[in-house]
């Protein structure tokens, strides 16, 4: 009798487990959730930069907020909107201008990323109307609020002083593109 029980009890247990699994299977349903996550990049200027009235070479700083969700990274380029910047202002009779190369840019070390690598910063580079890479090697930083500091070196000695009521506004273009 005991030998029969020793054989039957495990068998009964297995059958019970199978039964529970079958009941559970019968009362569950499959629901697949299909979605896609496209690679996305963003760039936001954190405001324009006013260097004020300058009498010597001056460094002005600004920043951008970037976001990226792709491990392949992104490139940042910058260029001057025009080859020559002419003074302007209310009551200004523009006569002076300066070439884009009178201003230099340098992108700093990114902060705020959750993973990935920073781009390699380059030395101060003269602006031109041709897009130039802001980093020596592109960044693979991933995050929703990556801060990219930038410095503008204004070479006052290369800029003609303004006429009355005039000031200079140097327009820069910053472009983000996925690798």
């Amino acid at each position, binding site marked *: 009798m005991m030998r029969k029980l020793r054989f039957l009890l495990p068998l009964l247990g297995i059958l019970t487990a199978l039964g529970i699994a079958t009941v559970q299977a019968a009362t569950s349903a499959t629901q697949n959730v299909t979605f896609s996550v496209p690679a996305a990049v963003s760039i936001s200027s954190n405001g324009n930069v*006013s260097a004020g009235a300058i009498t010597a070479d001056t460094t002005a700083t600004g920043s*951008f907020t970037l976001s990226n969700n792709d491990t392949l990274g992104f490139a940042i380029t910058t260029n001057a909107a025009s080859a020559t910047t002419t003074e302007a202002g209310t009551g200004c009779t523009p006569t002076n201008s300066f070439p884009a190369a009178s201003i230099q840019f340098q992108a700093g070390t990114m902060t705020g990323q959750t993973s990935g690598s920073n781009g390699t910063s380059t030395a101060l580079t003269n602006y031109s109307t041709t897009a130039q890479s802001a980093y020596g090697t592109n960044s693979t930083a991933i995050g929703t609020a990556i801060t990219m500091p930038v410095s503008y070196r204004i070479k006052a000695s290369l800029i003609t002083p303004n006429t009355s009521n005039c000031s200079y506004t140097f327009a820069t273009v910053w472009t983000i593109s996925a690798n």
Partner: protein
Amino acid sequence: MTLRRSVGGLAVAGLLTLLPLAAGTMPAHASIGLLVAPARIDLAERPSDSTITRQLSVANRGSGRDTFSISAVDVVVHDGIPESLPPSSTPYSLSTITSIRPSTLTLDPGKEGTVKVAFDVSAHKPVLGALLVVPQQQAAADTAPSGNGSVGMITLPRALVIVSAAPVEASGELLPSISLGVAPVTLNAPTLVESGPITATATLRNSGNTYERVFSTYEFSNLGHVWLRVQAPPSSAMPRGSATTAATTRQRLEASGQSVDTAPWLCLCEVKVSTYAWLANRATTPPVVQTATVIIFPWRIAGIMLVAFAISILYRRWFWRRGWHGLYRRP
């Protein structure tokens, strides 16, 4: 000429002196920004395709309502860096085959809009270009310097969505007329360094006949033991153009966000770079392999230790020669 320059310089200096002193730089707070998705579009033109459509999402990441213009531009790539050109500038022009509807989006802050982009691929030829998304510059008026003799910068952020396409057969293979290929040019890595990090830069040439993306994997090993494998940020190149990829042993820790150098302090290292070209979901096989040997040897510390060892040997000899060792003999 020298006199004129001197007089001009003096005049500039004098007038600049008259200008009020700068009170420090002051960033303004108006913000312009945008997000684009997808960030990149790679297409395979199948024989049955005459038009391929995609959607492009644009979100306003600025602080004010803004209008975004979306246009198709041509692109040329210099060492992985795209430069946008006016429409119809290249023989593989994207702008001539692209229609975008609508071509402008006006969005409140944080809002997102979508445009439909249609590519006429009936010619079944390689195409390269980009969708350029430009916000209307609206913050300039209230942040540009308004006083006398001041300088300010206005920044216009914009996004470039690279679009590449190549014709493929029904099986998905590239047409025989399209060839991909990369040829090794150089692998720059230091031969002997005292310590890490090691930075390696591989330069390759596009030996194919079309634009291609270039992907490199860097393997750092010590006496055959691989201790770091890194996927470098991809680059891209035009035919006969060069592409450069780079990787370093300095890696960022996911947990703390700090960077650490993974290079060992003593190493007979080999840097192995495996690179393949990619276009329209097809990659070149086998990858092109470049190798370089790097020795990490802390020669300054080793030198100090060697000198210290030599001094101790000399001292022992001198000590024993003077016979002072007898003083320490046990009775």
